[in-house]
């Protein structure tokens, strides 16, 4: 009260009166809030979204990322998959900076790239800054009608150094899966064995832009579609990198396309700094190889550790 007298902005008596009235009123707004139900607020949001879409009143960035669409349409369907089906647990999310460029490097598995979607959803929903993950995808993704357009709207772009450096230098959080199709389409018997890490293009992009590399280890994705065979002829016919055979697909048809409900862990490791190597570090192939190996080893060791801690594939 002494403070109120020193800076007499409000009449103390009236303030007190208001406060007492406020106390009385407190239950009322709560009642009103339950009376302005959640569904109505959601309806308002939905209608506003529909109006924006009809009028074309939204912004996309130069890579084609449509934030409005991603947050309202593309992300919500992943929620039940993330929370109920795979029961994803994230570890070390605080290793992702709140702002500024960073490169997320993760292992890739599961026949269908659900691991990339789950990582993106995990960061968007659980990281304090709710950052969108800008994934770098294979050429095949962008060549495919519908999928390619959707991937761009969801913030993905082609895996090439020009795009990676552009995203990183503009302060985005970029995700790469350097194993590519070798990782995602490997047979079940090779599960959790990291494949070759490309040519280290992601390391040179990080070195050029001086952003930290965050190694990410994903456990659980290997078991969603255990790939026990690969029909090469059919894959070649359809232009796919592989045609998977799982215990249930194509045997059970569309039913076989339901992923097994394994329990997932996504661990974000300690950031590896790349801004300590000086100006032309990206031109030093030995450094690039060493860093690539370091990232790869970190992910592999973390995978082994997570696997020894896991007691059951489905219960965790």
């Amino acid at each position, binding site marked *: 009260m002494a403070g109120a007298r020193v800076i007499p902005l409000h009449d103390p008596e009236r303030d007190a009166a208001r406060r007492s009235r406020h106390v009385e009123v407190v239950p009322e707004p709560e009642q009103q809030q339950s009376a302005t139900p959640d569904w109505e607020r959601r*309806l308002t949001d939905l209608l506003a979204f529909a109006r924006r*879409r009809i009028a074309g009143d939204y912004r996309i960035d130069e*890579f084609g990322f449509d934030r409005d669409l991603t947050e309202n349409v593309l992300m919500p369907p992943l929620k039940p998959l993330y929370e109920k089906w795979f029961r994803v647990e994230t570890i070390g999310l605080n290793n992702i900076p709140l702002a500024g460029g960073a490169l997320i490097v993760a292992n890739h598995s599961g026949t269908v790239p659900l691991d990339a979607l789950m990582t993106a959803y995990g960061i968007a929903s659980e990281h304090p800054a709710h950052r969108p993950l800008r994934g770098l995808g294979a050429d095949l993704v962008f*060549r495919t009608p519908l999928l390619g357009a959707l991937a761009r709207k969801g913030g993905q772009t*082609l895996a090439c150094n020009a*795009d990676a450096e*552009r995203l990183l230098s503009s302060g985005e959080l970029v995700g790469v899966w350097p194993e590519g199709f070798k990782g995602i389409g490997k047979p079940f018997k090779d599960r959790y064995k990291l494949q070759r890490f490309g040519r280290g293009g992601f390391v040179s992009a990080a070195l050029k832009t001086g952003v930290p590399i965050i190694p990410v280890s994903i456990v659980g994705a290997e078991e969603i579609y255990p790939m026990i065979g690969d029909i090469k002829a059919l894959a070649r016919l359809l232009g796919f990198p592989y045609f998977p055979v799982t215990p249930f697909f194509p045997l059970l048809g569309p039913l076989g396309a339901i992923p097994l409900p394994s329990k997932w862990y996504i661990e974000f490791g300690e950031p590896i700094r790349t801004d300590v190597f000086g100006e032309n570090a990206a031109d030093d192939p030995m450094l690039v190889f060493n860093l690539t190996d370091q990232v790869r080893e970190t992910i592999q060791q973390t995978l082994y550790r997570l696997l020894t801690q896991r007691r059951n594939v489905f219960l965790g």
Partner: protein
Amino acid sequence: MTPKVVLVTGVSRFLGGHLAARFAANPDIERVLGVDTEPPPRDLLRRMGRAEFVRADIRNPLISKVISTANVDTVVHASVTASPAGPTGRTVMKEMNVIGTMQLLAACQKSPKVQKLVVKSTSAVYGSSSRDPAVFTEDMGPKDLPSSGYAKDAVEVEGYVRGFGRRRPDVNVTTLRFTNFIGPRIDTVLTRYFALPVVPTVLGYDARVQLLHSEDALAVLERATLHNLPGVYNVGGDGVLLLSQAIRRAGRLNLPVPSAAVPTVGGFFRSARLVDFSPDQMRFLNWGRVVDTTLLRKEFGFTPRWTTQQAFDDYVNGRGLKPLIDPETVGAAERTILEAAARFR
């Protein structure tokens, strides 16, 4: 260095004509010559004021005589065009673009008075494919060399311009790679396309489109002519529109056509003389194209006044395109539903 005698090619079209008009209004320039195969439309001719029109074909060696006798010191080559003059005009267009440029450059090389060459090129030289990076910088090349049409013309034109630059190192050569033009006054394939009531697109693709307001394009060409700014520059507005988004902003309806049916539909629109898309422009509708304009800002010293979105909105308003679904109706429907919902509370 302000040029004394400027020669502008392609003056019977929008850009060349209005550019000549701007130079004619500039008292520092002594003489403005406009060249084209056909005379400009009457209103354009009136705007061009004191500019002299020379009816000449740049494919003809006559152009050499014009350049040397008039003591031309600056040549603005703005006639490289994407719009053929009718259904059979493709071959003629290619000849005008490529052979015309060769003749013009040969004439420039012969004349020692020529000090500066400004070439209107296009960002189509980067091609358009799924394997391209999202944003092109000036040092990038196309993944698939455009095999036909305007894009190939432009690649060849740029090749000849580079050759000219090597043979005449004393001439300042500015090559401007423009994105697609839009604006209330300019007439291009794209402005006709968006004016269709139902706009056909390719099913499963959504191109990223970067546009440049035609007034900005004129300003860039003018700046390149009046100052010494040699080099290759991308020119485009800030920001990007998706094709589907642009169609919505124009209030049109989007008609997705399966890829297999695209040639048929394209043929229909061509024969109906509505819109004539060449194969490379069709590819543009699949993938789109975005260029980096850092050099334009930093080195060329120009920032477009209109962003892509503003330029497009200016085109929509300027053309008086009436949306098929009135935004008022949408807003009213939204309010009605919310009021109804409030009653259920």
